[in-house]
């Protein structure tokens, strides 16, 4: 346990700008009923960087991701102990407004999940939920968000078209644009390209690299090349434990833990 703490401290130092720590995760344990899904997690996730969570299926990486915007609240029997701070605020504190938390910490899901409504209404959904009524403002938000998601040129003439009618890759970018529209600080991505073709995947990866100028990105991925391509930091999970976290380059070229090495060289998983 102590060496995780050391790891998390070590992560802070090299080669990062001064945007500070976004998530400070301390001593987090998470249970689904009697199943111990996350064990003594200590981790600092820096702001305005891309942090990748990797590991074999069932290692807890998605669970950790969901605990960052409390989507795990929806899972019956899920219990969490320890502390998760977002810019210094404990997000599991009783006075935390979960809706405001989720407004600040957006999420992109594994399978694109646009609403069965028009492209425009999909993007306007979040702002409308948070009280924006003015058509002029909504128009501006929709255009801005779609431009940022590199989708504007493809859909600008069809904003009234159903979001269900565009391709899977476009739907996923729409979901990312939908996140932008509520102006979050953080965007969590849960294997966002696992259902997409290679071209759509590379578009989303390009997008992620641009997004980190404005947002903190935490991405769960099964694809180690993807983690290597787009993340600044990588954290390796196994059986509910965080084994190792470090700069992506050094973690992939020179892992300190044998298990990390075995995983990234493809010996299991």
């Amino acid at each position: 346990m102590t060496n995780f703490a050391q790891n998390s401290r070590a992560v802070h130092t090299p080669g990062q700008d001064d945007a500070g720590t976004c998530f400070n995760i301390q001593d987090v344990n998470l249970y689904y009923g009697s199943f111990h899904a996350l064990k003594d997690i200590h981790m600092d996730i820096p702001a305005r960087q891309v942090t990748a969570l990797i590991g074999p299926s069932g290692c807890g990486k998605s669970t950790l991701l969901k605990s960052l915007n409390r989507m795990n609240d929806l899972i019956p029997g899920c219990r969490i102990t320890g502390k998760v701070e977002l810019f210094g605020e404990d997000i599991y504190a009783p006075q935390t407004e979960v809706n405001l938390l989720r407004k600040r910490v957006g999420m992109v899901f594994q399978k694109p999940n646009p609403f069965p409504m028009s492209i425009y209404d999909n993007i306007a959904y979040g702002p409308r939920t948070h009280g924006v009524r003015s058509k002029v403002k909504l128009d501006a938000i929709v255009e801005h968000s779609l431009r940022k998601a590199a989708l504007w040129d493809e859909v600008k003439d069809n904003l009234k078209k159903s979001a269900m009618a565009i391709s899977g890759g476009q739907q996923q970018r729409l979901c990312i644009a939908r996140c932008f529209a509520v102006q979050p600080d953080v965007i969590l991505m849960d294997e966002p390209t696992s259902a997409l073709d290679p071209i759509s995947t590379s578009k989303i990866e390009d997008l992620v690299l641009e997004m980190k100028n404005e947002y903190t990105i935490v991405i769960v991925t099964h694809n180690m090349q993807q983690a290597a391509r787009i993340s600044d930091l990588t954290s390796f999970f196994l059986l509910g434990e965080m084994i190792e976290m470090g700069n992506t380059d050094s973690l992939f070229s020179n892992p300190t833990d044998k298990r990390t090495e075995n995983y990234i060289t493809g010996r299991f998983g």
Partner: protein
Amino acid sequence: MRGLFLASACVCIFAVGVICYFLFANGLPFFAKYSAWDFITGTEWAPLRGIYGILPMIVGSFLVTFGALLLGAPIGVLTAILMARFASSRVVRVMKPAVALLAGIPSVVYGFFGLKLLVPFTRNMLGGNGLSMFVASILLAIMILPTIIQTSEAAINAVPNSYYEGSLAMGATHESSVFRAIVPAAKSGIVSGIVLGIGRAIGETTAILMVAGNQARMPTGILAGVRTLTVNVLLEMGYAADVHRESLIATGVVLFIIVMAINFIFSFINRRRVVQ
């Protein structure tokens, strides 16, 4: 085995075909003797004098159904939303059988309930003799609730949870996610439920007959009596003969066409929205 399935399907189609055929075969000859226009637009119903105008009944059917929807649709849809997304599983375990039971109560029992409770209550509180469009609508509203609730609930439960999660993940509350992401996605199913409810309401006979007063004249107000197309047939079929009898079958034809038209209009609207 396949033959058995086919045969079962054929029974169903055959039944529909035969019903259509006999209804029209028996109903249409009437229009050779009596102008269809006068029949549908005539405001006087006096079979003994050979005057057959069913406009009051057409209007009556529509008004009673409309009243039932006005009351039943919102209650039904909101109940379905409650059962699908708000109530605890314990509450749902009680409500589901209760709703199913509501569907299983015979019309005549509803009629008694209306006659013994709603009619006197209306007479005492609102005036008139109680046998009225108002009571008929309330009774029908209760009768169409199970149809609307069951269909809407199934439609709401069929909405992928990913819509709900997507909405929550943008910071929407539970209520707003349900009403703005889930319910709109279930809209076509909910509309189907309401259309089925309309079909049930417009076709209901016995319970209405017991509480609606059944005067064959243009409805004069919500506390006045009203006669619907179905009641018109049921009331007089027992003793009608010759042209009078044919006129009642023709009334059935009109009712049938109205129900078909409503179904077609709604399925057309639904389909057009899906294409869009």
